[in-house]
C-alpha cells in the first residue's frame, strides 16, 4: 500500500428520509456492522492446479454467501488479556536449545532484520491491539518442525516463531533473521522464495487473514507455484516486504516494512428498520 496510506474515509449512509449521514466508522461487534466483501478474484482461488496440493483440497461446490452475516461472523476474539512473554516478538532471543544460553550468548545465524509494519483496514484506519503472529524457516531454509526433513541443519538458537499485539496506531514489529529459500515437492525442482508466514486476527473472525511476506527483489518470487496462485501481479505486491533503509540500524540490522490490510467495516444502521 505504499503511497496510498495517508487518507481518511467516512462511511456514507442514506437514512430513511433520504438524508445522507456521514458517520465515524466504529469497531464491529455490533449487529449494524458489515465488512467490505472479500474480493475472490484478488485472493487465490481454492483450486489452483499449479500448486498441486490444492487440487484435492479445494471445494467443488460454490461457497454459500451469507448476505446478512450475523453476530457469529461479525464478532471476534480480543487478545489484549493474552499474556505475552518479553521476547515473544524477538526471534533473536526467544529460543535456545541450551537453556544455559541467553541474551547475546548464542545468537542465531543469519542476516539480522527488523520486520515491521502497520495493520490498517481497507479505509486506511489503523487496527490497534490486534494479534499478529509469524513463523519462518531459519537462515538455511529449515523449519523447527518435526515434519521438516530438509538437508539444511537446525539452528540451535533459532525457533522461528513470534507474536505481538499491534500498538495504539496499528504498528507491529519483530526482530528476526532473514529466512532462507528451500526446495519443496511440487514440480520437479520447485523452490520457495524466502518468506515469513504472517497471521493477523483483526477485529472480527471476518477479518481473519493468514498470508506470507516475501522479500523485495527475490528472483524466486515469480517462479513460485504458491505465489502464482494469485492472478493479479498487484496482489503479489501486497505481500512483498520493502527494504526500508531509514528504519535500518547502522552496524546492526536491515529493516523490511510489511503493512497488513484487513477488511474494512462499515455501518448500516437503517437496513433492519424496514
Amino acid at each position, binding site marked *: 500500500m505504499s503511497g496510498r496510506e495517508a487518507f481518511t474515509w467516512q462511511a456514507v449512509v442514506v437514512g430513511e428520509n433520504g438524508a445522507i449521514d456521514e458517520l465515524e466508522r466504529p469497531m464491529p461487534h455490533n449487529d449494524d456492522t458489515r465488512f467490505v466483501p472479500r474480493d475472490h478474484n484478488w485472493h487465490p482461488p481454492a483450486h489452483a492446479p499449479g500448486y498441486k496440493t490444492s487440487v*484435492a483440497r479445494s471445494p467443488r*461446490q460454490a*461457497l454459500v454467501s451469507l448476505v446478512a452475516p450475523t453476530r457469529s461472523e461479525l464478532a471476534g476474539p480480543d487478545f489484549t488479556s493474552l499474556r505475552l512473554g518479553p521476547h515473544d516478538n524477538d526471534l533473536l532471543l526467544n529460543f535456545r536449545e541450551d537453556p544455559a544460553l541467553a541474551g547475546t550468548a548464542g545468537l542465531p545465524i543469519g542476516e539480522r532484520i527488523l520486520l515491521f509494519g502497520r495493520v490498517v483496514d481497507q479505509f486506511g484506519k489503523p487496527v490497534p491491539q490486534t494479534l499478529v503472529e509469524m513463523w519462518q524457516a531459519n537462515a538455511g531454509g529449515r523449519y523447527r518442525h518435526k515434519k521438516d526433513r530438509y538437508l539444511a541443519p537446525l539452528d540451535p538458537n533459532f525457533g522461528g516463531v513470534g507474536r505481538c499485539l499491534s500498538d495504539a496506531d496499528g504498528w507491529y514489529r519483530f526482530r528476526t533473521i532473514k529466512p532462507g529459500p528451500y526446495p519443496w515437492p511440487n514440480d520437479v525442482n520447485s523452490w520457495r522464495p524466502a518468506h515469513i508466514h504472517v497471521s493477523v486476527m483483526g477485529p472480527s473472525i471476518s477479518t481473519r487473514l493468514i498470508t506470507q511476506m516475501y522479500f523485495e527483489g527475490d528472483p524466486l518470487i515469480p517462479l513460485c507455484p504458491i505465489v502464482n496462485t494469485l492472478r493479479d501481479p498487484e496482489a503479489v505486491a501486497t505481500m512483498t516486504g520493502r527494504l526500508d533503509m531509514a528504519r535500518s540500524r547502522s552496524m546492526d540490522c536491515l529493516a523490511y516494512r510489511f503493512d497488513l490490510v484487513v477488511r474494512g467495516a462499515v455501518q448500516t444502521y437503517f437496513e433492519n428498520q424496514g
Partner: protein
Amino acid sequence: MHQPNSRPLADTLLKETASQTAGPYVHIGLALELAGLPPRDEEIGPRLAGDGAKGEHIDLVGRVIDGNGDTVRDALLEAWQADADGEYQCQFDLAAPFNSFGRSAATAENDGEWRFATLKPGAVALADGRRMAPHVNLAIFARGINIQLQTRLYFDDEEAANAACPILNAIESVTRRQTLIATRETREGRPCYRFDIRLQGEGETVFFDF
C-alpha cells in the same frame, strides 16, 4: 452534499492483503506443542471451557478429509462459539472459565483427529429477534488451502432449532444442510459430537463466504 455513488468504492478502498496458504508448518506458529516446540507462558489451545464453566461440557472431534477420501494430517482449525447463554465472550482470557475462541489441529500424532474441549453453546439471537440454532463457527487452514475455509457445526439433538435456523435455511440444498450436523456420541463417559469435514466431492461440507 455528494451522492454515495459519486465516489466509486473501488477507488477509495485499499485492497485487502492477499491470502496465502498457511502451509505444512503452520503448527510452529499457531500450535507450538504439535510442532515439537516448547509452549510459551500462554497459548491459544483447544480447551475453550474450563471446569468451572457453566453449561454442558462436551468434546467436538472430527477429521478433515480431502477429495481422494484421505484424512488430512496437517490442518489447523479455529473455533468460535457462544457460551451456554448464547453470548460471545470476546475478551480472550485464559483465567476465565470459558473462552469463545480456540485452536486445534489434525496431525499424524492424533491420527488426523482434531478435538476441542468446550461446552454446548446456546442459541444466538439475531437483531430481529429470531434465533440461530446452537452452532460453532470453524475455520480450516492447511497446506493446499489457499484461503481459509469457513463452516459451521450444528448439533444433531437440536432438530427443532436446526429446522428454524435462518442460516441453515439459507443453504438452498436441503441435502447439503446435513453436512453441517455433528453426531452425538459418548466417549470416555463424556458427550462428544463428531463432525467430519469433507473438503471436496461426495458429501462435501458447506463452506461459507461472509
